[in-house]
């Protein structure tokens, strides 16, 4: 964990309609980190990921992602945002991961097709290629989205609640993929709710409750004291408060 950070948050304040959801966050993420972002509902976890994807501009401060290009970042949105009634095959949704290299019109080269099939196999989806996405269970859809992340082959992987509402077997399989990425020196940042999973598998944790309550080694960040402070922070929040009560 030495050398230049992959990501640097510099006094970052994020929000919607001028109401901040994340306050004055500063800190570094080293390349190859496996970082869990946890915190109560409304703590700004998903918002933070969006700022890394580049779809949300900071109200104040900045996110520095240095030399990361768009194709270096793979993002898994919350599953609920996907229109599962769309008449599209599993193969096509996974193939969308090759967008960055295939471009707007390009056909898929043999190598890309091989990558797509490999990804489907790695997630136990061989034979599902021609199913429509509407016919999948929640766990199967999440496997498909992980296959798409594999195809994207990115240096930074952002996961928004990847293990929510799926069965234990699927969660274990997907966690194995996350660990594989970690072993390959990719940087993984995951928004998670299950503290047991975080404690067991994620070395680093950012406990977020609009501001960073704790950030560091997981066992220290998730102390009972810190968790209580995080909960109080959200409960005490007044939505009609001044845009930024906690002046810089």
């Amino acid at each position, binding site marked *: 964990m030495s050398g230049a950070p992959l990501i640097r948050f510099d006094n970052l304040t994020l929000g919607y309609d001028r109401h901040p959801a994340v306050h004055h966050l500063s800190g570094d993420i080293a390349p190859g980190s496996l970082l869990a972002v946890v915190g109560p509902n409304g703590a700004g976890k998903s918002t933070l990921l969006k700022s890394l994807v580049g779809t949300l501009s900071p109200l104040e401060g900045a996110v520095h992602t240095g030399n990361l290009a768009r194709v270096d970042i793979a993002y898994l949105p919350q599953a609920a945002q996907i*229109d599962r009634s769309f008449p599209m095959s599993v193969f096509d949704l996974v193939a969308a991961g090759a967008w*960055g290299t295939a471009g707007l*019109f390009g056909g898929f080269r043999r190598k890309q097709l091989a990558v797509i099939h490999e990804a489907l196999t790695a997630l136990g989806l061989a034979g599902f290629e021609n199913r429509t996405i509407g016919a999948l269970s929640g766990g199967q859809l999440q496997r498909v989205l992980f296959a*798409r992340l594999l195809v994207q082959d990115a240096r930074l992987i952002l996961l928004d609640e990847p293990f929510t509402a799926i069965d234990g077997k699927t969660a274990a399989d997907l966690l194995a993929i996350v660990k594989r990425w970690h072993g390959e020196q990719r940087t993984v940042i995951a928004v998670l709710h299950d503290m047991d999973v975080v404690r067991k598998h994620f070395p680093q944790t950012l406990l977020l409750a609009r501001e960073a309550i704790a950030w560091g080694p997981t066992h220290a960040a998730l102390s009972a004291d810190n968790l209580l402070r995080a909960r109080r922070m959200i409960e005490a929040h007044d939505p009609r408060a001044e845009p930024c009560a906690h002046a810089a």
Partner: protein
Amino acid sequence: MTRARNPARTRPDTVIADYLISPFAEFAFMRRALVGSFALAIAGGPIGVFLMLRRMSLVGDAMAHAILPGVAVGYLIAGLSLGPMTLGGLVAGFAVALLAGGVARVSVIKEDASLAAFYLISLALGVTIVSLRGSNVDLLHVLFGSVLALGDEAMILVAGISTLTLAALALIYRPLVLDTVDPGFLRSVSRAGPAVHMIFLALVVLNLVGGFNALGTLLAVGLMMLPAASSRFWSADISVMIPLSAALGMLACYSGLLASYHLNLAAGPSIVLAAGAIYIISLLAGQAAGLLWRLLPKAHVSR
């Protein structure tokens, strides 16, 4: 009918062929109507498929109303002439689409409510302008079109719009699909999302303006939405639904024109009614999602 002039042509098969083909073989205006409405159907179906999948089925209807004041202003300035009316329709359609989208972005109103507000204003304005001058016959032309009186100009316009639409759809196909299925993912890999949405809305307006001359503003939407909705009952794969919607639209044009000829019905509405009949049949018997198949006992394990 009276066309059985030659006694040799009264064999049953030739009677049927006569019934199905001769209206088009004998009358140039029927051939023109067929080709012009085919051009509309070929582009309208695919546009309709995307409208439906993007949960914008009623947007087509709203936009069809929204183009009216532009068409009316064109009519007021230049009379019943294609160029100015088309241009006016395009301007009004784009204005409403941009205003509705813009207001939704900067205010608390969502895009559907914003669009409803602007199209109602636009429609009322359009009817007022039409009523300033001209008889009800002219208004009927604007509203219900004149598929049986397509001039060269109109044919070229409709064919041009159709060609442009298919080319543009092919161009934006991937981002448009992704923007519909998984907009969060598209935003993470590309900035094309909003631009693609606007291009798509422009294509909707273009096709409605193309359709108003043939079918009228009110019925142009029918050839867009009915074949598209029908296609979903036959396939759960968008790459099949797109050509299928165009084919079903063409079938509606042919059978609608045939019915209008033999039964002496208004051509525009009869095309849309034919599309409606195809929709009802698809709804019941479509092999992918038709209702009748649910009544049949199914194999326990099926894919």
